[in-house]
């Protein structure tokens, strides 16, 4: 080997070693003893369904951190994960260390109690039966509404492409099915099959199924379909900021989704009990409920809802209790009609 080759070799060896050391140092930095923050903070592990991400990370968590610090002087750290309600329910059943979970539908809370993770109906001990906030289901269409969609019925026209989240993993998808079925049923109360017909007509046109309401919206924004059925909250905040690429169509009849908080007692260290209880209480307090309203959720406290002038008006709103609650609706409508009749008919 020539002398120059040797020197070049040395140089590249030294560069490689320096590079590896540099990357290693960068990677391990936060875990080095001297770079740690002084007092280890207390931690709350929170799992939430997909559309909660902004309001929790930007609004509720910081507000509670401030309140707790003012009260006790301690720092609270939130470790969180957001995905479809069904996905996080499965994760919790598999044993993720969640302290609390805000689920998009009570049905997932029932699944947790069936799996023995929480006591049956333990969420009912909280205010409003465990419901933290609500939002109606709406239709999002392309700017200018080129396909002239004015209600759920218009979605059954041939040639319309609908983006719908997947009921297997998404709570929002289950709400959407109830909205579609309920709108049909209430629109023509005399005819027994009206709900089923509307649901079938809509599902004939579903062109994409995403794992959560949030990812369904991402698909829609990437150009899939003519209409998206989703939470009002999901699109409202962007519309307020003038960033919404599309228009909200308010159906005459639609469901209000109700989002249930569960506390996974077996994952909570007795030392943290007081902190968790305080956070649970905080979720129903006026400051937190105001935050939900400002991020487009409807508060469980009706008088706060007047504060957000962007909320649309719905002629005939309904809730899951109109169907006798989630366990019954799941059996009779989600499984009985959607899964066993409509999916069969569509051959999916």
């Amino acid at each position, binding site marked *: *080997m020539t002398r120059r*080759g040797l020197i070049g*070799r040395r140089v*590249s060896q030294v560069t*490689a070693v320096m590079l590896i050391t540099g*990357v*290693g140092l*960068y*990677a*391990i*930095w*936060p*875990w080095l003893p001297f770079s740690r923050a002084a007092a280890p903070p207390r931690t709350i*592990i929170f799992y939430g369904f*997909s559309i909660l*991400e902004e309001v929790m990370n930007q609004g509720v968590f910081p507000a509670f951190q401030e309140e707790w610090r003012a009260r006790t002087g301690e720092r609270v*750290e939130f*470790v*969180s*994960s*957001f*995905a479809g309600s069904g996905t996080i329910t499965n*994760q919790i*059943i*598999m*044993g*993720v*260390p969640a302290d609390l979970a805000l689920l998009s539908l009570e049905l997932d809370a029932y699944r947790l109690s069936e799996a023995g993770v929480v006591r049956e109906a333990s969420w009912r001990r909280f205010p409003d039966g465990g419901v933290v906030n609500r939002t109606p289901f709406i239709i999002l269409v392309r700017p200018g509404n080129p396909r002239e969609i004015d209600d759920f019925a218009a979605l059954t026209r041939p040639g319309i492409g609908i983006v719908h989240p997947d009921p297997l993993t998404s709570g929002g998808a289950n709400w959407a099915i109830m909205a579609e079925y309920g709108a049909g049923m209430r629109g023509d109360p005399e005819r027994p099959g009206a709900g089923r017909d509307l649901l079938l007509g809509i599902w004939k046109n579903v062109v994409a199924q995403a*794992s*959560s309401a*949030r*990812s369904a*919206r*991402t698909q829609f*924004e990437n150009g899939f379909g003519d209409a998206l059925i989703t939470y009002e909250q999901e699109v409202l905040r962007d519309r307020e900021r003038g960033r919404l690429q599309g228009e909200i169509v308010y159906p005459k009849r639609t469901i209000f989704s109700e989002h249930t908080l569960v506390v996974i007692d077996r994952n909570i260290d007795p030392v943290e009990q007081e902190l968790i209880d305080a956070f649970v209480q905080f979720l129903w307090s006026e400051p937190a409920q105001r935050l939900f309203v400002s991020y487009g959720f409807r508060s469980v406290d009706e008088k706060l809802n007047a504060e957000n002038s962007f909320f649309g008006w719905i002629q005939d709103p309904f809730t899951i209790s109109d169907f006798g609650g989630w366990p019954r609706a799941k059996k009779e409508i989600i499984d009985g009609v959607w899964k066993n009749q409509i999916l069969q008919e569509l051959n999916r």
Partner: protein
Amino acid sequence: MNFQPAAPRARPRYRPMRTFVPVSTLLLVLLPLLLLPLAAVFVFAFRGGLAAFWAALTAPDAQFALRFSLLIAMVTAVINAVLGTYTAYILSKYRFPGEQAVGIVVNLPVAIPTVVVGTSLLLLWGPIGLLGRWLDPFGLQPMFSPIGVLLAHLFVTFPYMLGTIKPLLDELETTYEEAAYTIGATRWQTFRYILLPALRGGLFTGALLTFAHSLGEFGATVLVSGNLRLRTQTAPLYIFSQFEAGNLATANAIAAVLAVVSFLIFFFLLRYTNGRKGS
């Protein structure tokens, strides 16, 4: 894919006239398949301007995800460098019944879908898993913690080290080894002073390949990590969450960084292997 340090070999000379058509055909094929998709990542990463890119990159969860990914990739590379070399040594130097079966099993992770790796780890170590159920009462829980992520990465990247070392060991002339044994060297001494120096290039490339694969691992990690931000969220999981949340610019900022890191890794690999060819 072959990053073996190859024997010196005559390379054809550069002839512009003869080269133009085949090379431009290759580039035309690569453009839509590889180059444009990568370009799109960078375009979206920088669409909000440099300040937005920097803000996305320095967000605490993004920083955590990047560091955590690099750390896991390094530990994975080191552990699998040792395990892979040991496996290669055993498979290459010992003959035993069931040898072929072991050879197949250690290469399986290449073929098994990573999602299946994740589920099987959960069903073994998870709180309701075969072994995990006995650990759970003691408060030991490998899943949904960095250990779980590491286990998944060790599994998924196991064959890469083995794949680079074993052919080298197989091809190595046995004369020096035999000479070492005749003058009374132990197996360890022979390995340390005869084989290891010959394997250095392979160790380097194998470790880099393992590192690169670990850095990009998604399917198994998403299941075993619980996807907890600031705890177990790796860079690819962060990218996916941000993409799902519709934050394309944030997702692509991190994606761009990962793409650059991978580019650097393979740049070093190629330079290294070419350097060996030249010397």
